[in-house]
């Protein structure tokens, strides 16, 4: 067991290293990285700044040495300086991260508490009206473009009904909750749909087993059987999904934060794209990659705790 976990950790570090290599190769892909950093309009840049930049990036040394410098800087927490904002990348990310976490966690919870129970009900009502209704909900969630959902919600609840604000973060307890509502719903629909589908499949499988039928035959109440006997054994697939959902929300936040002008990491990434701010984007990507790696490792541990039958081989 300990050996397996150790192996996972080593593999994880290798993956992170290769990911850094990929990003580094991208920054050097078009020759001089300064052309990407400054963009095609940067032709008229001060030669002094140009040289200073080259010195900072160790461009006078061979490429593998440049990579070694880059990695060692990152390991020490120095992700370089954002070109557009003229501030250390780590600090910029630190400022924006709480907003994104708030939005992501809110929609993660929302997606889970909507998707998982609906999946269970969909399975227990198989073939009936509710099943079709919930599956339709899931189908829409997986087919509608997320930015479009956001815009339609803005149209109805902000422009027409004027119940909720159309964007930005808002300050203060209730006001910020009102601001959070629309983006969180927009972001939560897709994960809710995934949860629903996967929980439904898992539940259907468990409901078909002998011990569930036996429990029913013995006279155990329907709801007890569903929630205590069946659901507890159908929990692994949605649990696995939850880590991927949280990670997938990173993609979603980029879009939702753009739609709702939410001042988080996702919008920062888009701003960085327009400002051709490569170090900032690379920093965001590597930090999220490392966080994701950490979550997968933790998931492995939770598995072993939740389901002792799982043996690592």
């Amino acid at each position: 067991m300990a050996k397996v976990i150790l192996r996972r950790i080593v593999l994880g570090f290798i993956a992170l290293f290769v990911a850094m290599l990929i990003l580094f190769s991208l920054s050097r892909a078009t020759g001089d990285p300064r052309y990407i950093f400054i963009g095609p309009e940067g032709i008229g840049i001060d030669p002094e700044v140009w040289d200073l930049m080259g010195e900072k990036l160790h461009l006078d040394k061979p490429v593998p040495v440049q990579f070694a410098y880059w990695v060692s800087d990152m390991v020490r927490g120095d992700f370089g300086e954002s070109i557009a904002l003229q501030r250390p990348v780590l600090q910029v990310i630190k400022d924006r991260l709480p907003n994104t976490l708030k939005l992501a966690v809110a929609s993660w919870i929302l997606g889970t508490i909507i998707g998982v129970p609906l999946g269970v009900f969909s399975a227990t009502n198989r073939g009936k009206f509710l099943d079709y209704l919930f599956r339709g909900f899931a189908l829409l969630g997986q087919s509608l473009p997320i930015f479009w959902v956001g815009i339609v919600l803005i149209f109805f609840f902000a422009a027409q009904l004027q119940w909720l604000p159309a964007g930005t973060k808002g300050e203060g307890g209730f006001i910020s909750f009102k601001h959070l509502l629309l983006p969180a719903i927009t972001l939560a629909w897709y994960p809710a749909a995934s949860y629903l589908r996967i929980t439904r499949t898992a539940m259907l499988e468990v409901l078909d087993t002998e011990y569930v039928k036996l429990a029913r035959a013995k006279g155990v109440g329907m709801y007890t059987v569903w929630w205590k006997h069946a659901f507890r054994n159908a929990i692994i697939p949605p649990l696995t999904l939850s880590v991927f959902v949280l990670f997938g929300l990173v993609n979603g936040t980029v879009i939702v934060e753009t739609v709702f002008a939410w001042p988080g990491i996702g919008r920062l990434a888009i701003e960085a794209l327009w400002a051709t701010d490569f170090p900032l984007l690379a920093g965001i990507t590597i930090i999220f990659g490392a966080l994701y790696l950490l979550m997968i490792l933790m998931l492995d541990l939770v598995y072993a705790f939740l389901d002792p039958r799982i043996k690592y081989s």
Partner: protein
Amino acid sequence: MNTFISKKNIGNKTDRSMWNFPLRMFFIMRRYPIIPMMVIGLLIITAIFGTWMEPHDPIRADVLSRHIPPFWMEGGDTKFILGTDALGRDVLSRIIGGASVTLLVVTASVTTGVVVGTGLGLVTGYFGGLVDDVVMRIVDAWGILPQLLIIIIIVLTFGQGLFVLIGVLAMLSWTGAVRLVRAETLSLRSRDYVLLAQIAGASNTRIIFRHILPGVINMVIVTATLGTGTIILTEASLSFLGAGIPPPDPTWGKMVGDERMYVGAAWWTSFFPGIAIAMVVMSGNFLGDWMRDRFDPTLRQL
């Protein structure tokens, strides 16, 4: 089958109820994905013959006809069935024009991604060893990078363009194909018929293409179809964010993105392109589900 009316009664000559015909049609439609096929057929036809179907020029702006609503609304004009956008361009024509971009980008990227992924999966699964290690480490590393962010970085590095877009979207699907095909190849490699082929002196190339590929191709096609929806949505999202194909070519995602600030005043400009995206994605998902049930029931779990 779990339906409210037993299948035996449908089409029964003695049953003269008014629901007989519609229900029979319903069951036929359930057996074959007719509506999704129709939507995708329509997409292909509009993509190919779009230039002749557009009522107006999708690119030419006309300031005099800005934000005309759809024809059934007050102030609408039957000349512009779905209304016009902020630059006075016909929304319907732009949706028709966007079909070709969607179809081209999605087909090209899915094909590229799946072919590369399948090839690598076959090679790594069959030969193992160093190639396997190297490719799988790259697949792992690719897996931990947030997809949309890495795509944005690639767009930033290489600039916007059709081929860059196809390339980055192809990269979305290749890792999944590698993993699936590799796992399946590993199990097929030790089957008797492969061993016998080896004993009979067949070359590795022959074994891979004649004996292993037919065993994995169904799964590859099914998962590729199931993944098409995600690719379309990502393409639309990239266009929406302005990182897709550079203007002025219309794409559905860009139409929504360009017009989103006018949603309060002119909802139709961003509403209809979104419907078009959703319909195509939904058809892809339906078709994928159907193909999975039909060709590869082992994948039910996905």
